[in-house]
């Protein structure tokens, strides 16, 4: 029985390090190649030795597909292709191909330059890896080899995120990550375009399940809250700090604020800190077709990403009087520009900081979110901070105090009183349970497999899917192989002549009912053809043989032969109204193509022998006739 095998190397009952092996009809495909944020050792990358112990991976994999540019989906790519060794094609969409190297380079810098790790991939490796990438367009069917084809569908989530359909023959798998649907309750601000897929009825749908147990509220409320807070603060003359990560969220919030400023005719300046964001903005500008209806509509007048109100930030601006809004990296307030600005502004209760995402425990962001109002600042930066103390404290520092802590290494610690308002805003871009369910409804898969989520939550969703769609649902752990048996339909070529001839016989073809037809199935060179028997004979170079069945039926009848024949003829004529029954001049009867002859029995003149002869095509009618005649003739009335 044909089967599809799925083995997650990462993201099986887990979040992060997405990497799923799929073998379908003899083809091996790897879906995503991500890293795990939580580990710094070997566990951060998927275990590629599972595929092969030694030797190039190229021999074992037909292609690699990357769904989007998040590092947990593409972070291991240079390691995989350059260090482990893979030379086959890597498929991703154009925006992903554009943005992916930026992120990889950033990741490399942090790991190698900051943490000082060795034995990590180099910039050159990233470049080499990107050379192996084949970019695909949405809805473009790419023929990987003669049998394997892939097709990308829009997925929303982030710029360039795509669902992929992998198809070999008539077996297919759809891989979706972080999709979202036309209800944009839960979606990105920017890419508020519905994930959409044909009713392609794949054998297997591999879906993410990060928010398997969540149904979210409308985006609009959260948006309005966010804007209202910013607006109120600015109106009061306060400054707003929004710590963000460089990609994705930042652009969305920028667009949101830009539009709001435009709509409400506001004048206060908005800044974003330079660096990654600018480069990324450039790509966002280019891939405007991937964004939502509003941005696409506005594009006729101007490109929304060419911001009117948002300018690049300069360190000196932070001390400017009057209201302003600043987007600064990083998002968790643990270092860098955002922390610097935070320190400057924290003392004034007119100001506000808005945390637009989740903060890891231990970061300043997490502390202030959990309500801590007095922060102990420590670390090496303290020196520079103390230096800047003089020019800063006099102005608006408010109640900032500093004192020394007696310790061996003489680390400074500073207590910072946070008077500014702290807000939390959650904008997450993963599909909620409803979104996943809706996608399943749209695609109508025969099996569903859940990845990229916590086991407990998956369990709930699995149960729901099985209950509501009556399809099998799987949730393998890492390294566990799931086998799905498929029941592929096998296409057979039929000659047009035969088809027309056969359909002409019966009634109109009905989709719902199977139809019987006569023909010869030829299996040759890996293909199936249904042809008419004559053609099959011709192709095979065989002569046609006729097979005839002949049967004798004895009838007790004392009359003359031709009278018997006449009686048989009348009887058959009466019984078989729909058939053409003919009495031939040579004393035989034909019913359609079946011949009936009567002779007197050589021994017993009272017994007449009826010879019934038919070809094998008319088997049905022939046997019916024999049984009819065997019952005997009705008592003649004459």
């Amino acid at each position, binding site marked *: 029985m044909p089967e599809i095998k799925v083995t997650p190397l990462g993201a099986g009952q887990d979040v992060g390090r997405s990497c799923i092996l799929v073998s379908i009809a003899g083809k091996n495909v790897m879906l995503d190649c991500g890293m795990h944020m939580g580990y710094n050792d070997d566990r951060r990358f998927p275990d590629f030795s599972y595929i092969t112990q030694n030797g190039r991976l190229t021999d074992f994999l037909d292609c690699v597909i990357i769904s989007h540019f998040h590092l947990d989906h593409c972070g291991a790519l240079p390691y995989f292709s350059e260090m482990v060794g893979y030379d086959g094609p890597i498929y991703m969409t154009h925006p992903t191909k554009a943005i992916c190297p930026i992120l990889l380079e950033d990741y490399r810098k942090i790991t190698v330059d900051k943490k000082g790790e060795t034995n990590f991939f180099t910039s050159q490796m990233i470049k080499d890896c990107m050379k192996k990438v084949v970019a695909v367009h949405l809805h473009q069917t790419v023929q990987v080899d003669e049998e394997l084809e892939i097709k990308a569908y829009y997925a929303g989530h982030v710029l360039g995120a795509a669902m992929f359909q992998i198809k070999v023959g008539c077996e297919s798998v759809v891989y979706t990550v972080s999709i979202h649907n036309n209800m944009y309750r839960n979606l990105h601000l920017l890419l508020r375009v519905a994930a959409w897929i044909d009713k392609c009825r794949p054998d297997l749908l591999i879906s993410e399940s990060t928010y398997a147990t969540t149904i979210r509220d409308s985006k*609009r409320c959260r948006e309005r809250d966010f804007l209202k*807070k910013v607006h109120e603060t600015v109106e009061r003359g306060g400054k707003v700090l929004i710590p963000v990560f460089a990609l994705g969220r930042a652009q969305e919030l920028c667009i949101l604020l830009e539009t709001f400023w435009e709509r409400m005719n506001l004048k206060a300046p908005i800044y974003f800190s330079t660096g990654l964001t600018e480069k990324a903005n450039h790509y966002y500008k280019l891939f405007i077709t991937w964004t939502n209806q509003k941005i696409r509509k506005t594009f006729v007048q101007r490109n929304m990403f060419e911001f009117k109100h948002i300018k690049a930030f300069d360190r000196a601006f932070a001390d400017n009087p009057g209201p302003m809004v600043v987007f600064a990296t990083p998002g968790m307030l643990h270092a860098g520009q955002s922390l610097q600005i935070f320190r400057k502004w924290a003392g004034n209760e007119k100001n506000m900081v808005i945390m637009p995402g989740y903060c890891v425990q231990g970061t300043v962001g997490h502390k202030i979110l959990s309500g801590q109002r007095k922060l102990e600042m420590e670390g090496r930066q303290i020196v520079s901070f103390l230096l800047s103390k003089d020019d800063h404290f006099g102005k608006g520092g408010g109640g900032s105090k500093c004192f020394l802590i007696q310790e061996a290494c003489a680390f400074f610690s500073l207590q910072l009183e946070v008077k500014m308002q702290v*807000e939390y805003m959650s904008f997450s871009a993963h599909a909620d349970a409803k979104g996943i369910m809706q996608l399943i409804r749209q695609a109508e898969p025969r099996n569903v497999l859940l990845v990229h989520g916590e086991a407990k939550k998956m369990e709930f969703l699995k149960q729901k899917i099985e209950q*509501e769609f009556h399809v099998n649902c799987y949730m393998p752990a890492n390294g566990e192989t799931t086998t799905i048996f498929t029941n592929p339909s096998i296409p057979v070529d039929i000659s047009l002549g035969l088809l027309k001839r056969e359909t002409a016989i019966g009634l109109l073809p009905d989709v719902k009912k199977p139809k019987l037809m006569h023909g010869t199935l030829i299996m040759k060179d890996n293909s199936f053809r249904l042809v008419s028997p004559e053609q099959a004979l011709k192709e095979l170079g065989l002569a046609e043989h006729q097979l005839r069945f002949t049967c004798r039926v004895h009838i007790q009848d004392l009359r003359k032969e031709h009278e018997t024949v006449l009686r048989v003829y009348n009887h058959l004529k009466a019984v078989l109204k729909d058939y053409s029954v003919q009495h031939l001049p040579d004393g035989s009867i034909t019913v359609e193509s079946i011949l009936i002859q009567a002779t007197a029995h050589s021994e017993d003149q009272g017994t007449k022998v009826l010879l019934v002869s038919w070809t094998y095509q008319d088997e049905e009618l022939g046997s019916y006739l024999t049984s009819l005649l065997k019952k005997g003739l009705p008592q003649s009335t004459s």
Partner: protein
Amino acid sequence: MAAHLKKRVYEEFTKVVQQQHEDLSAKKLRLTKPSKSAALHVDLCKATSPADALQYLLQFARKPVEVESVEGVVRILLEHYYKENDASVRLKIASLLGLLSKTAGFSPDCIMDDAINALQNEKSHQVLAQLLDTLLVIGTKLTENPSVRMRLVEVACKHLTDSSHGVRNKCLQLIGCLGPVEKGVAKEAESQSAKDVQKIIGDHFNDQDPRVRTAAIKAMLQLHERGLKLQQTIYCQACKLLADDYEQVRSAAVQLIWVLSQLYPESIVPIPSSNEEIRLVDDAFGKICHMVSDGSWVVRVQAAKLLGSMQQVSSHFLEQTLDKKLMSDLRRKRTAHERAKELYSSGEFSSGRKWGDDAPKEEIDTGAVNLIESGACGAFVHGLEDEMYEVRIAAVEALCMLAQSSPSFAEKCLDFLVDMFNDEIEEVRLQSIHTMRKISNNITLREDQLDTVLAVLEDSSRDIREALHELLCCTNVSTKEGIHLALVELLKNLTKYPTDRESIWKCLKFLGSRHPTLVLPLVPELLSTHPFFDTPEPDMDDPAYIAVLVLIFNAAKSCPTMPALFSDHTFRHYAYLRDSLSHLVPPLRLPGRKLVSSPVSTSITPNEDPSQQFLHQSLERVYNLQHLDPQGVQELLEFTIRDLQRLGELQSELAGMADFTATYLQCQLLLIKALQEKLWNVAAPLYLKQNALASAAAKQILEETYKMEFMYSGVEGRQVVIIHHMRLQAKALQLIVTARTTRGAEPLFGMCEKFLQEVDSFQRCFISELPHMQGSFVDKLLDLMPRLVTSKPSEVVKILQTTLRQSTFLHLPLPEQLHRATATIIEPTGESDNPLRFTSGLVVALDVDATLEHVQDPQGTVKVQVLYPDGQAQLIHPKPADFRNPGPGRHRLITQVYLSHTAWTEPCQIEVRLLLAYNSNRSKASAKIPKCTWSDSMEALPQSENGIEGTIPFSKPVKVYIMPKPARR
């Protein structure tokens, strides 16, 4: 028949040969028009290849064919059709047949047989489909003939088994359009064929081709539209089609379900997989709701739109559409709406500052959660959050319609509607504001909702702000804090966008009069009065202060205790505002003061209304005078005109009527005065100067008559006659004056001719009205007509003069409603002392904002005129999109006028005003009146467009200070 037809063809044919002959021999002598069919025939015969023939046919199709030659052409085409082997040519011929049978006045029954014949022998599917299309055209032209329809339907049924989808498509279309609809007739007529159209169409609901399925559903809908009652059994079939793979099928199926739900709302249908039963309309509602989350946005729009018109649905189902359950990690979470509501009811002000404010609460039973909602659950929640704004607009519209019919639903959907005020697309925001306005009598806004609503006041789009002001006019607010909040936000709006002044004042007027008790406790704070200290008197010209006063005075109208809280200057300000902004400030019963005008109770019918009576009486008085001495007549007229004008000022609802009659009397007065001139008694050449008055009067009367005809809405035919009559008199006067002042009869001759033509056309246009005009100028004139036509100009003038003097004064009947078109230019205000500077030769854009009242078809008639100091006038036609229609009878013009001029040495003022263009040809009563070439005043005005005959200024001119600077080199 056939023989006859053949003969006809040959007749045509022979004609051709002759003509060709002529053409060849003598090309100049082309007197007879060559027959279309003949030419075509020749062309087709000449054609050597199918491509050639196709070319000829294409050329032929471009030219129209006269009704008489259609049949001949059809014969020729058919003949070629039978001969033709190429399918594409036959296809073109078939389509031409269809086109030809559409020709107005041609009855296609004679070609039906041929078309059916052609159908029977046709092999190509495409041509078959095209022929069926032709039959459809023929059938739709002969809908009255049941036997033809029967026959066509039979033909269609026969071809339903065709293997091509195109043919089946057309067959179904044909059945849908022509299938028998009448029950009784259908039964007996169809007894022989024993075919039920609905069943035939229904059988194709599960055709293998989606296009055929769509066509089948469409045909069913077509039958419904034509009045056939669809059977309820189709409902099940239609429900299955909702799960079709193809969007056009689903879209059509949604429609069909909707139709059925309207036909059989109360039938009971079983719920599959349970023993329960529900009403069909509820079931259908659930199913359509389900389609709101369909994969295709076309279907979603369709479904969302239809939901609005399903008003019979039970409230239980209706309320489910707004249902949303949130959860987070398997724990129930409250929606933002619920949280807001809770905060409100607990009296705590929304902080939104706590992290984890929205933290999920109780655990959820995993079994009870339904992820894919069945039926109506959350349909609107989905629709309003759709990614496509088309779907969102449709959902808002549907919400509006349902909320209008169900107050409880209106209350529930409020939260969602308020959310939509912050949509990213302006159209959606605007639509939801309008929706809210429409349902506003069913709802009361909570404070937090009001807060969200008011936040939109800062929107930079004027449309949004004005829609919001309109909404606030009819909103119910629950608390005094709400009123205060609204006032504060409106004042903020006022400072940010000063041009919204009028709109904001109006909004506060209604807000005040709707909530007097809520305003009362706010009064001391709003007027900043203090129990012990005198506070400084606020600036009377401050728009914000006026806004506050408007709110308070309107509230005070129904709250007699309020004036006690006013300070002295408030009373003074009241008096001032009551006079200057009387439309915003109501009359108040103030202590120690007599109420100036007694409130007019609305119960008085127009006839009993004293002012109405006064109007009629004064008119009576004027009409009764016939034989007073001229002096007395003039005086009476003058007094009456004065009375009427004052009445118009006092009673705004009678203003139109009073002005109209006053204008008429003014014309009459002018006419009398002109005729009383001494100049008539003196020899003409001596008094050249004196006639200035008479000719000026004639001019003015003409102008006034145009105003009367075109500036008032509600003018009926009876008035138009009188107006035209007056105009005729003015023209007669003009003629007489000219006759007196010019020498020689030459110019007079033409003028007389023209005048008589006008009299003639007057008679033709208003023949029915003539009996009412006994003794009038025109009556007498028509009696003398035979003499006038034959006599010399000087004679004519004499006759006219005497008739004009002797003619009586016509009674002007008043219509029910009469409104004068008015326009007020809001912007530019004309107050600015800073000239608008621009480089000469370049263009500057001037924003013009004006309100128009009682203007019919403003897009076609309203123009902007710019007058430069050098007398140069420029007429600008605003774009149709510049006009908005905020209410019945009101329009708003917001446009930009481009100015340019050569350099000036110093800034100077230009005048901007609005003109009403008119064209008497276009006016309702007059069918054809020659242009008034005599009126000199009209000639002075620019006649830039053919449709415009003249223009009437109908707004006060506004002066704009501009300064074109010389270009720097």
